[in-house]
């Protein structure tokens, strides 16, 4: 919520972001007891969500490579094997097609599997089971085969991992009816959306982000409660504004928020929407925002063609064409397989400055033109 902005403002305007860590006043401990909000990182949020859902429902079980003994490739499932045993935390052989198929079969017969992909790049080896079986079975069997399964794992670019470990699969999965696709940003998102996904009777793809795992966010007591849940299909307005709407999901939400701060100093009030849910897309919230601001910038890390931004743009044209005062700006990753070299990688992924420039273009405010507030 506002917690993030409040935190930033309290540390002064020149806070520096170092890959997920914030430099805070030395007096603050990691758990900041002096302020009302507790902080947890996304990893802890996911771990606690898994733990609570497995505790509440004995049919929920976790399956994937390295999730058990190794405590999870990214330590998301830390401690779960010890707590729940090997029947509920399964280390699988290296076969995405195999264990995804097994998960689908188990879901057919009443269990609730949570299938972890080490990264969604590897889910490509299992995509037939996800699309042709998980997504379509309920429909094709006329409701006889329901698939209450969750597919989760890191999605999108990390840092220096190259093309086969960096693609964003949001638009791949979000194009398929029968699936639900969510992309958490903050710890609250992570807890709420993963819990909702596990409880959902439909197959849900949860697109996490490796670089966000270590990032901490303040969470309220309500979020920490084991019954906490976020609705799938509702976006969140991270920051209200009136001049331009910026939509984003996952890591790009953080970038969009920072871009909004920079824009604020230049007199542009940006509204940042954290999509949270890619399918179903919260068209209502997006359109209401665009009708207010009349300008739209979509931000995503993935490839531009057939991406999430393309879908958002079309939905706004369909519902709110008359309200647009400027063409929709689409910020996406470069249309190339992700290069490895650090300088090239940086250029292949949207940066905060790209979002700022796009917002200014949407406001007809190019760099060289003097600002008119």
């Amino acid at each position, binding site marked *: 919520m506002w917690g993030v902005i409040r935190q930033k403002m309290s540390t002064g305007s020149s806070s520096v972001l170092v890959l997920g860590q914030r430099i805070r006043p030395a007096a603050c401990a990691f758990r900041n007891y002096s302020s009302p909000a507790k902080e947890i990182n996304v990893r802890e949020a996911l771990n606690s969500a898994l733990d609570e859902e497995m505790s509440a429902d004995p049919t929920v079980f976790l399956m994937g490579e390295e999730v058990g003994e190794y405590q999870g490739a990214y330590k998301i499932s830390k401690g779960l094997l010890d707590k729940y045993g090997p029947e509920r935390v399964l280390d699988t052989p290296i076969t995405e097609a*195999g264990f995804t198929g097994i998960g689908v079969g188990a879901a057919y*017969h009443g269990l609730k599997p949570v299938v972890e992909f080490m990264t969604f790049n590897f889910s490509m080896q299992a995509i037939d089971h996800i699309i042709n079986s998980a997504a379509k079975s309920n429909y094709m069997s006329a409701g*006889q085969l*329901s698939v209450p399964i969750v597919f989760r794992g890191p999605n999108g670019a990390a840092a220096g991992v190259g093309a086969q470990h960096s693609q964003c699969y949001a638009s791949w999965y979000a194009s398929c009816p029968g699936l639900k696709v969510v992309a958490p940003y903050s710890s609250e998102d992570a807890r709420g959306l993963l819990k909702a996904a596990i409880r959902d009777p439909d197959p849900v793809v949860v697109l996490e982000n490796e670089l966000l795992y270590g990032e901490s966010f303040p969470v309220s007591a309500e979020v920490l409660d084991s019954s906490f849940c976020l609705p799938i299909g509702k976006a969140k307005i991270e920051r209200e504004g009136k001049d331009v709407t910026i939509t984003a999901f996952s890591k790009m939400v953080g970038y969009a928020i920072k871009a909004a701060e920079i824009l604020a100093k230049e007199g542009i009030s940006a509204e940042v929407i954290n999509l949270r849910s890619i399918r179903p897309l919260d068209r209502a919230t997006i359109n209401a925002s665009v009708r207010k601001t009349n300008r739209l910038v979509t931000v995503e890390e993935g490839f531009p063609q057939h991406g999430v931004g393309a879908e958002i743009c079309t939905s706004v044209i369909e519902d709110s064409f008359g309200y647009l005062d400027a063409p929709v700006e689409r910020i996406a990753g470069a249309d190339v397989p992700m290069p490895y070299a650090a300088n090239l990688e940086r250029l292949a992924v949207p940066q905060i400055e790209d979002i700022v420039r796009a917002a200014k273009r949407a406001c007809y405010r190019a760099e060289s033109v003097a600002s008119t507030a």
Partner: protein
Amino acid sequence: MAVWFSRSRTIGYCLRKKLGFFGLVGHESSCCFSPSFRHISSIRQIGGSYGNPNGFLNDSAIHFRSWRFESSTAETQLDPQYFQEEDDLNQGLDFPGGRVTFTSELRFISESGDKRVPCYRVLDDNGDPITHTSFAQVSKELAVKMYGDMVTLQMMDVVFYEAQRQGRISFYMSTTGEEAINIASAAALSSDDLVLPQYREPGVLLWRGFTLQDFADQCFGNKADCGKGRQMPVHYGSSKHNFFTVSSPIATQLPQAVGVAYSLKMDKKDACVVAYFGDGCSSEGDFHAGLNFAAVMEAPVVFICRNNGWAISTPIEEQFRSDGIVVKGRAYGIRSIRVDGNDALAVYNAIRTAREMAISEQIPVLVELLAYRVAHHSTSDDSSKYRPVDEIEYWKSSRNPVNRFRKWVERNGWWSDKEESELRSSVKKQLLKAIQVAEKTEKPPIAEIFTDVYDHPPPNLKEQEKVLREDIKRHPKDYPSDVSL
């Protein structure tokens, strides 16, 4: 010095003992290729009579290749003795997976055994029981039901195939030649066993009580179809009959079967999971993953392979170079058997036993049923384009599983010509009526386009339905009048 504990049964040694007990390994067993299998004389005999996987083909078969039966070293059987003498356990080393003894002979395991894995059968081609075979007797009631369902299945295929040719349904797949596989395997299972089919096993549904009208309704995609007209013909599914809806991509059902078994284990029922698949399916990655996982997870799955020699136009020697599917079981640590798929009693016995093993020992079992796909792959296929017509005719007549079983049933005094003609005329009437009724039945209502995509229809689908209905109201002439709203 690390000592690796073997978690798996030590292969070969224990397995041989167990298989020997069940009389399933071929040394002493009386089951063997019947003289009617024709061996092409052009096979080079070096390396033993590997046999001709296309032995059933005429000599004029053009796609037979003999070069691969040469083997350099004398490896004797498909169930080889890896060592000359008894294992000297002192001369070994612990490796991951268990203890391995050493040998100073630089010897490669041959790519093929000297003999093919023999094939279990009970009745010979004339329907006479082969003496000294082990099989449990079936009662008159069971035998008559089995035979009756085989005839029904056979006739259903003919009538529905014709219906497709007449343009009344869009597509059909027949099981001609595999009636014994379908019905006898279903008869050996219990109704609690969960079946994941490929697509050529409607006989299992028939056995379990799916009516001819149910089949017709699915093929016509009308509103009585329990699949709500969502799938193309022959993609049956019925949770009531524990028959998972047919899914077109090949082999996906194999790892899914393991997942179902994983869940079933927790139910602790006297039931197992049964996954059917064809010879071509063994090439898919999911086959490897499914079988491998089943063994690792000790899943009670009976994997039933219908090796019918063809995957559309791909004959099995272009599909794999192993001795069929049965030998692949050992590679995964799975108990396996090869059975004559045209022998209803052999199929019944083998599946019954496999099922008992799967449930009592909580292990996967692989059963390869050898048969021949007399049918074309589907109504979109004309198999005379890639195989000789007289080969198809041969299997349709001389190797017909229905006739063979009929002879046995008749010889027991349980069936007669009179009953045969009564059954056939009754079934034909029922089939024609079922088709007529199905054809006239309304198609599913518009609302069913949008249901079951998700558990609850999301707002965008509700909106789409609203828009569609408004459109139909405004332009009724653009929409069919026989679809209810």
